[in-house]
């Protein structure tokens, strides 16, 4: 089942609560040194591409292709960044804003829609409930490639090519979010809901004042997944968006890559800029991201 993270819940409810007890951080020198050394080597290998990206991005073009290789930039310059940010072939900040706008609108609507849908499926009794739930869940078995082309033809008919509508609506009715929230809602205690009922609350008030405040960890998890999914979407926007001003960041950066095939200084500057917002988002959402990931879809 999808379990709420105890730490996230405790944090939301009681910020003064002590940090949970950690396993003792014993560093057993003779035994742990090989493991530590191996981890250091792996970390260097993992960070090498990032170093190479940053180093290349501040090199003038001649230094990028010089041999022998310039391991450390000899003449660092921000020229590549300046050119990428003011390129007539497309403004990277504009693409970033497009991605942010689309992902935010999608996430807010999607989380709200999933909560509205999961609520009756988890907390009400009505004929057809199980059938509707399994019908929605069963749609997760349809591989995305099957709907790609018909959805594209629909976008033409709706006149949504080059419109953000095509980036927001087709993915809205995803079954995963409904599944995630329904599993969480099922586990909430009945008592609070019944108390609110006795006080005369209607079902919408129960959802808003009782269910949702108790579900913040799962709502945040779903929001993080939705935002990342929309932000990182690559296949679909590649085909439904062709106006350079309306591209999202991943697709826009890739058009740079096709234009400046070998101008790696500019390419690395654009990838570095494109990485900054996700880096900030990661640092902000790190805890939810990793905990949501480790609890989603896994039975404890």
């Amino acid at each position, binding site marked *: 089942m999808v379990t709420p993270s105890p730490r996230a819940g405790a944090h939301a409810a009681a910020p003064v609560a002590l940090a949970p007890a950690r396993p003792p951080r014993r560093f057993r020198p003779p035994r742990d040194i090989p493991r530590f050394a191996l981890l250091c080597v792996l970390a260097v290998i993992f960070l090498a591409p990032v170093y190479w990206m940053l180093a290349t991005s501040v090199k003038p073009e001649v230094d990028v292709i010089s041999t022998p290789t310039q391991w450390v930039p000899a003449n660092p310059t921000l020229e590549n960044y300046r050119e990428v940010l003011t390129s007539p072939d497309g403004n990277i900040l504009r693409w970033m804003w497009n991605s942010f706008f689309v992902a935010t609108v999608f996430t807010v609507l999607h989380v709200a829609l999933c909560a509205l849908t999961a609520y009756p499926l988890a907390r009400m009794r009505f004929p057809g409930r199980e059938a509707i739930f399994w019908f929605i869940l069963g749609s997760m078995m349809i591989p995305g490639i099957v709907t790609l082309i018909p959805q594209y033809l*629909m976008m033409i008919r709706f006149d949504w090519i080059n419109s953000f509508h095509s980036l927001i*609506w087709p993915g809205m009715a995803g079954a995963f979010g409904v599944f995630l929230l329904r599993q969480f809602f099922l586990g909430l205690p009945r008592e609070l809901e019944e108390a609110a*009922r006795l006080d005369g609350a209607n079902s919408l008030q129960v959802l808003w004042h009782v269910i949702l405040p108790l579900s913040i960890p799962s709502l945040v998890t779903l929001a993080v997944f939705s935002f990342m999914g929309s932000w990182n979407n690559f296949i679909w926007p590649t085909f439904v968006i062709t106006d350079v001003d309306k591209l999202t960041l991943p697709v826009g950066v890739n058009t740079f890559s096709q234009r400046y095939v070998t101008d790696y200084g500019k390419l690395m500057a654009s990838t570095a800029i494109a990485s900054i917002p996700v880096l900030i988002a990661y640092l902000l959402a790190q805890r939810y991201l990793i905990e949501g990931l480790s609890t989603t879809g896994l039975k404890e």
Partner: protein
Amino acid sequence: MSLSVPGEAARPREARRRRGGREGSALTPYLYLLPFLALFLVFVVYPVGYGLFVSMHRWDLLAETRPFVGLEYYRNLFDPETPQSQFFWNSMKNTGFFTLVSVPLLIGTSLGLALLLHRPIFGRAFFRSVFFLPGILTVSVMGILWRWMFDNQIGLVNAVRTDLLGMQPLPFLSTEGLAWVPIIVGTVWWTIGFNMTLYLAGLGNISQSYYEAAEIDGATPWAKFRFITWPLLAPVTLFVFVTTVLASFQLFGQTLVITAGGPNRSTQSTIQYITEEAFSNNQFSSASAMAFLFGLVMLIFTYLQFRIMARDARGEN
């Protein structure tokens, strides 16, 4: 205990009756479901039928008529004379190769990293972040980065080969076979952190008492892994396996950005070829037929993932 059981049983029934009276209209739950179901029908259910319809007609965006052709486009895929058949099965072979190589690699490396990081060690949070971080990059950034790492002349890999090891540079990107190296290495680098996190969660759920008991019996580290860790991680491994296979089938961005499917279509993935047939060649019917055939292959693994999730859903009812 025996006293509380009837009480427990009676309470929900009573509550249900009371709620039933206050629920408002019997239509209320359906009103909640209406917006989702409307979008669901328009953007999920209808496209499946529409796609099947398109695959059985000769679809031309500009033509006046779209005649019914039945299974012609499906038959074309099994007729070795047609270019569609050649390119489609070539792309299937490429995707299959990528899946066969990358899935064991992705499971093995992420489990290995998780084992290295599970027990406390100096700087553990830092290492976890380092291995997780590449996964947050978008596929185009990751692809451009690895194309540059493996650039035929002056990429970092070739720079190390020539300047440090005194070897000849290898034209990774333009050599059939070798072009898979940057794609697979880049994919491992990119996705290892997600699976590692799942494995770390799985390792955290294994009770230490098993290991303590094994230690008393004098078990070697390998025996502890073989007889405790690996079997108890089986549910996580199944989940990682199924999701990784599905993700590998979806191969698209990595090959598009790193090699553009080349050299000579040797790294062209199935989704890349389907989109080429649809959006570059305007062969929507042919591409739809391929999508359905490919979808059928994927369905087996999608079904497995569905079962894993459905097991959780049933457990709650």
